[in-house]
């Protein structure tokens, strides 16, 4: 599989979980609600979206629905797409209402009681979905997930050359823009630190490369990687803060992996394929944009909109009240703010976002079942949010990206061990996540980016503007 396909898939997953994390951050980062049952709304979003758009007599599905909305709207232009949006909206409303039901008895409780109760409710409802075939087909899950506009893909502009030129150009422009932003951020870093970062990147890439040759070289490779990490640590100490060296290091490693690896394995055409990531040369007769890339674009758009929406909510007097509830609930209450109402709203908004993530997830993966919605998903999201910096929307993006890249990246290592160890390697990964959580909370509880700054739209000196 071309690296571009893998990257597209990874970024789609990252987008979905970023949306999930944004919802969690509203509840936990900004309002201080420890909702250990957050995955419940992810599940709700996925299942409701799927069931609303499922054909009426879907094969081997014995649950409620399908409500066949796309069929109902088949006369309308883009009816399938509209139906999908409508289903997503319904899912978000259902999740919000569910969170209201959960919240009314639990939001007056202390944080730890809220945590255990939320976890309990999520666990029980997960058991219900898994055991009751009449609800959502139980453990067998749901196939036949409606994927809007799937028939239109792959999108081609006619000929291979034109596709390559147009889509390739767009791809390269996007990559160039990303490079420009990263470069702008890294520019001005201490020269020695930059040199050290580069050396670290080379070492890590070389180490990984050696390790993939197998046998005893695996150990040698690991040692080289470890040395590389040590050099990176040195680079951080050298520079003024860790952001720039790490960003440089990451960019170099990414470039080496994404552009360098195909160069080594398949030659320059491989590197070109990586660069024109939007264009899949193997899709259809003349290549084109695959459905997967479309889903990525849609997901990224959702993340962008939700990010803006969350920022607008948080950078306001409303957000100020939420944060005051997080800091010390007695204070806003003593000042006349009815904190219970704010907590309920926060729950509903965060859950709606999680539901949207669920709907996207279902569309991406095309088949849902209860095993995709375990309590661990919530815990991973907590880890991602904390890594990036709780109460920081940009932190959620960064943290989710870091978390899932490491999580998926280390899955590659599975290939170098006999298959019967698969479960245990997965367990090792989760062990490291647990350890990482404890370490981050101790050494850097504010995460990578710390809490964000706030601007309610009225300048501090009293000046303001209307939109």
């Amino acid at each position, binding site marked *: 599989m071309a690296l571009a396909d893998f990257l597209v898939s990874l970024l789609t997953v990252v987008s979905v979980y970023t949306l999930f994390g944004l919802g969690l951050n509203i509840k936990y980062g900004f309002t201080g609600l420890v909702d250990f049952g957050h995955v419940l709304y992810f599940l709700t979003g996925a299942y409701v979206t799927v069931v609303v758009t499922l054909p009426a007599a879907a094969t081997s599905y014995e649950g409620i629905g399908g409500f066949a909305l796309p069929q109902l709207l088949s006369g309308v232009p883009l009816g399938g797409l509209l139906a999908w949006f409508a289903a997503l909206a319904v899912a978000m409303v259902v999740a919000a209402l569910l969170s209201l039901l959960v919240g009314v008895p639990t939001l007056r409780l202390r944080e730890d009681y809220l945590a255990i109760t939320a976890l309990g409710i999520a666990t029980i409802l997960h058991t219900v979905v898994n055991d009751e075939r009449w609800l959502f087909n139980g453990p067998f899950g749901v196939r036949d997930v409606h994927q809007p506009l799937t028939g239109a893909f792959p999108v081609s502009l006619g000929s291979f050359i034109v596709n390559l030129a147009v889509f390739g150009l767009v791809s390269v422009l996007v990559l160039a823009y990303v490079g420009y932003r990263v470069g702008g951020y890294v520019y001005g870093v201490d020269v020695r630190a930059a040199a050290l970062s580069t050396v670290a990147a080379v070492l890590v890439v070389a180490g990984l490369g050696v390790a993939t040759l197998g046998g005893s070289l695996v150990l040698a490779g690991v040692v080289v990687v470890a040395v590389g990490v040590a050099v990176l640590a040195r680079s951080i100490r050298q520079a003024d803060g860790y952001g720039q060296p790490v960003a440089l290091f990451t960019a170099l490693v990414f470039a080496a992996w994404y552009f360098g690896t195909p160069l080594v394995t398949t030659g320059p055409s491989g590197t070109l394929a990586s660069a024109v990531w939007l264009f899949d040369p193997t899709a259809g007769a003349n290549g084109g944009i695959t459905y997967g890339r479309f889903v990525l674009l849609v997901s990224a758009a959702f993340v962008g909109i939700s990010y803006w929406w969350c920022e607008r909510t948080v950078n306001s007097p409303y*957000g100020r009240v939420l944060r005051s509830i997080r800091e010390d609930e*007695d204070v806003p209450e003593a000042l006349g703010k009815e904190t219970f109402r704010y907590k309920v709203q926060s729950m509903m908004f965060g859950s709606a976002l999680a539901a949207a993530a669920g709907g996207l997830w279902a569309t991406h993966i095309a088949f849902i079942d209860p095993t995709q919605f375990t309590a661990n998903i919530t815990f991973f999201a907590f880890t991602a949010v904390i890594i990036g910096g709780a109460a920081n929307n940009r932190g959620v993006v960064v943290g989710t990206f870091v978390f899932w890249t490491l999580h998926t990246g280390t899955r590659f290592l599975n290939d170098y061990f006999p298959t019967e160890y698969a479960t245990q390697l997965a367990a090792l990964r989760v062990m490291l996540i647990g350890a990482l959580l404890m370490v981050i909370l101790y050494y850097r509880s504010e995460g990578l980016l710390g809490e964000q700054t706030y601007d309610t739209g009225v300048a501090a000196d009293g000046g303001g503007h209307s939109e």
Partner: protein
Amino acid sequence: MSDPILEVEGLEKFFGGITALDGATFDVDPGITGLIGPNGAGKSTAFDCITGFLDPDGGSVRFRGEDISGERPSAIANRGVVRTFQIPHELPEMTVRENLALAPREQSGEALVASWTRSDDYYTDERRAQERAVEMAERFEIDHVIDTPAGELSGGQRKLLELARALLTEPDLVLLDEPLAGVNPTLEEKILDHIQALAAEGYSFLFIEHDIDVIMEHCQEVIVMHQGRVLTRGEPEAVRTDERVVEAYLGGEAQ
């Protein structure tokens, strides 16, 4: 003679085996009223019951003639009764400016949908809140740290912030829980001056205090509590020389 602003009648509160309030009854008139009594007399508990942080087990509280017993603290605060805490409850991660801007009531930007749609009222109210925050910070001389996270302030600055924030809700009655505890004499003077000035502007205060001199100098009336009940009340001079009060304080310490 104006009507009492606060009427507490037969207030009772039990914690397991302990009786914190045993039928406390008192009225608070507009102006500055002191609330004194030995430790364990039930003063802070009375505050909690009046402001809704605790549900009384018996008795009633009336504010401006309306029964507010058992209401939520936010509802009571919106009626015009606000309290400060003995140990300041500053919001540590938020700046002084944000702490203060939080306080004014009826800000239209504090509704979820309003924060998205941002009408003109949103901007007007927020601008007003920010301006008042700055004004109050200047008045209490904490404007030089206005953009510092409140958790980094000194103890005295936190006390001032606590008071300033309470006042920004434009209350009718402010319940101060030991506002001068642990405060150096210069700051003490300043705080008392502020309170006097504010009283002249029409605010009423009920404050818990241990320093008899402060009570003597600043309160128009003093209420004395002991063992969950009101022992006596009256003008400071009268109360100070009251035998029962002296005995309560001595008796309380002899235990």
